[in-house]
């Protein structure tokens, strides 16, 4: 049986270690000159795909990213980790602020169909907008089963056993292929791209496309009204005894008197 074809979606986000600052116009955060990197959950997705390929279960890994020119860096990192080819859907800076999971999922759906993939691996959510929507929307558009918040993926004959991290604990489901999987933190630990691999990645194919090539129009359905810092943390109070604590909680209205 020939190996699975996998599509992995990657998003370029502000690096997790960077201290994010709100823009003066209060309509977003400062992104210029700030360090960016691949969304950590997407790295886990790429790693999972590469591991499947190493186990000879997958035959080709295609990575895709939607965004401005700089997204090519993210794609090259994925190629350096072990992906075979990359597709960059170029979205100009001015349209990028309108790009929403709904558009991304439509684009990925078209790519998945064109490339005839068997599995789409995505990060469960992006650390900049925390939407947690793309995977679910994509599965709906493709009418494929979905295994979200995956912490373990095992291939069975024509299907996948996916262990999901849910609020109540762990849930294992069996979904038929082709399927959409979104990755959670404990699925794997992504490898570092080694320098020789980064150099080899330059020779791997990277094609640039436009949203119009896939018939998708980036039109926003909502408008950001304001972006604000979270309220600064106020000093707490130290109390000497439990009774005093209860009294203060009642005072503040957190407990029924």
């Amino acid at each position: 049986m020939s190996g699975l074809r996998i599509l992995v979606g990657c998003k370029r986000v502000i690096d997790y270690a960077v201290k994010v600052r709100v823009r003066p116009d209060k309509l977003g955060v400062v992104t210029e000159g700030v360090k960016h990197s691949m969304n950590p959950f997407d790295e886990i997705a790429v790693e999972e795909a590469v591991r499947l390929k190493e186990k000879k279960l997958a035959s080709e890994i295609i990575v895709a990213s939607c965004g401005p020119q700089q997204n090519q860096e993210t794609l090259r990192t994925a190629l350096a980790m072990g992906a075979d080819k990359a597709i960059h859907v170029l979205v100009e800076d001015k349209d990028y602020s309108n790009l929403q999971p709904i558009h991304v999922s439509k684009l990925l759906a078209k790519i998945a169909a064109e490339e005839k993939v068997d599995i789409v691996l995505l990060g469960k959510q992006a650390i900049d907008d925390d939407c947690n929507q793309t995977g679910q929307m994509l599965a709906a558009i493709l009418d494929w089963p979905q295994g979200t918040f995956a912490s373990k993926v095992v291939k069975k004959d024509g299907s996948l056993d996916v262990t999901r991290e849910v609020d109540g604990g762990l849930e294992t489901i069996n979904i038929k292929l082709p399927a959409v999987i979104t990755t959670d933190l404990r699925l794997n630990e992504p490898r570092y791209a080694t320098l020789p691999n980064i150099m080899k990645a330059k020779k791997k194919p990277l094609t640039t496309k436009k949203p119009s090539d896939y018939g998708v129009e980036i039109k926003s359905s909502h408008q950001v009204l304001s972006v604000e810092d979270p309220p600064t943390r106020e000093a707490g109070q130290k109390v000497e005894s439990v009774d005093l604590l209860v009294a203060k909680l009642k005072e503040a209205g957190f407990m029924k008197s």
Partner: protein
Amino acid sequence: MLKIISLNGLKHIERKFKREVLSNLSESNNYAFLCRHCSKAVQQSKTSLPYSKGQDAKLALKQKGKRQKNIPFVKELFLGRFDKEMLLFPELDKYEDVEHLNELIAPVERFFTENVDSQSIDIEGEIPKELIRQLGELGLFGQQIPHEYGGLELDATGYARMAEVTAMDASVAVTFAGHQAIGLKGILIAGTREQKEKYLPKLATGEQLAAFCLTEPSSGSDAASIQTRATLSEDGKTFHLNGGKIWITNGGIADVFTVFAKTEVTDEQGNREDKMTAFIVERAFGGITSGKPEDKLGIRGSNTCEVHFDNTPVPIENVLGEVGGGFKIAMNILNSGRFSMGSSGAGMLKKLIGFAAEHAISRTQFKEKLMNFGLIQEKFSTMAVTTYAMESMAYLTALNLDSYVEPDLSVEAAIVKVFSSEGCWNCASESLQVLGGLGYMKTYPYERYLRDARILMIFEGTNEILRLFIAMNCLKYAGKELKEFQKLLRNPLKNPSAMFLFMRKMSSRKPKKVMHLNEELHPTLQHEAWMLEQWTQYLEKAVQKLLRQYGNSIIDEQFHLKRLADMAIDLYAMTACIGRTSRSLCMGLKNNDHEKTMTQLFCKEAVHRLENNFEAIMSGDQSNGDDLRRQIAEKVFTEHGYAASHPLTKNKF
């Protein structure tokens, strides 16, 4: 009619064309330079290239063609000649090259931040084997090894850039340097194809580590006096090594050693003498023992130990280069890695400045944030300016090294090393000071960075030796040409016009504006351009005075040699800063006004130092205190220590 030239647009034309164009323009009275101030669009848009399509052809021409030899910049300064090319701060040919380097840096930086526990490496005094394996997997042990042997084939610029990141942990950085900057560099520079094929692949992956064995108990700075011997066997097929080396980085963990030993060489006349030869020695050859790791002040994770050779058999195929040619190989190896100390130092300092700044911004004393106090501001400006100069010089040197087939930048590399090592030590100390008591505690990394920085002034050629190297090399170069004038002095009537020009140059004390350095630079750097020109001319005067006064015995006048070296260092640093700032201004890089401010301060302070050194040289040993210094030192040595009577001493009357 105003002719407006885009300085930026000329960037990709062959440099000599640019000089011709510029020199033609300067003759006309009606021209103006318009340096392209990068519009926001250019800054943001990567597709807008700063040169027109018409110049693509010329760019292609330049790309593959490296020029043969460079004009030795600092040596020429000693003759009062300033090679203006040095003011055109070089750059990588393509934007993609810069991007590519950044792609290589990112995972390494991340790895170091997440996986390298510098504190425990320092306390344990060892780099864990697992970490070495991971670093090898990343590809960091073969940075300069060619692709065909499994390396990354980084050029000088790429290597310098990588050094900024690996400097995050000094022990790791020194382990790398011991392995590739010196340990296996000999094989890269002087190895035969067979030697490269045999050794480089395993060295590239870090499966085997390399070490450089030159220093001995009685031979540190005086490398030519080593006593380890290599005797050729009867059948002429094997050398036997006998001797001991000390303070060898990676000595206990390396499998491949570049060893320098004395061999008996017979020349054409049949005279026998001892000359140094370089050998590639495998630990597997036998007879090699490593001592226990030295307990050091800093870079404690780096393995430093004695290495002893007891009749170690070395096949003649393992001679590196030629028998008897070892000294030159040793010097070439050491010269080739030196410049990277500038970028690794800058990398370390940038981190320290960041940490210390966070502290100064948030810490309150006397109801004010530390950052509002002048004494704190002074520290940060010193640190920032020193880092800027270090970085500028390192990359100026590295980029130039990559532009020529036979570069002669040994003096420049030595300058970078001296400046960077001292700059790191001083700035690490200042950043510790900003934190006060906290900086002294082991819970914070400042004291470790300070301890790690101390070695920089000692290894890879002590700063004292390198200052003498800088001064003597330049004096030798200048002296050759000045010899011509000496002949002239003996017979002035033979060439009266040359004599007249020479006398006029000698007598005029004040420098004149003849070099037009400002034409190579952004218009706001006029003052700095003039300072550069002035002090080049003053340096020439100082050189002439010293050569006239001492002749060949200048070699013994170390006080003066140091002053000359310091003047050279300041001039090279100023050139690098000014050139880089000019480029930043012309290209409209972010914070270019900040760069200009830093360059202005650096030049101001450099000129003070230049003035002091110049006056000390010109005023002679009785005025500048040198005579007193000699007397004091002599007394201390006669008395075997401090010689003044105790202040409480009283006469018993």
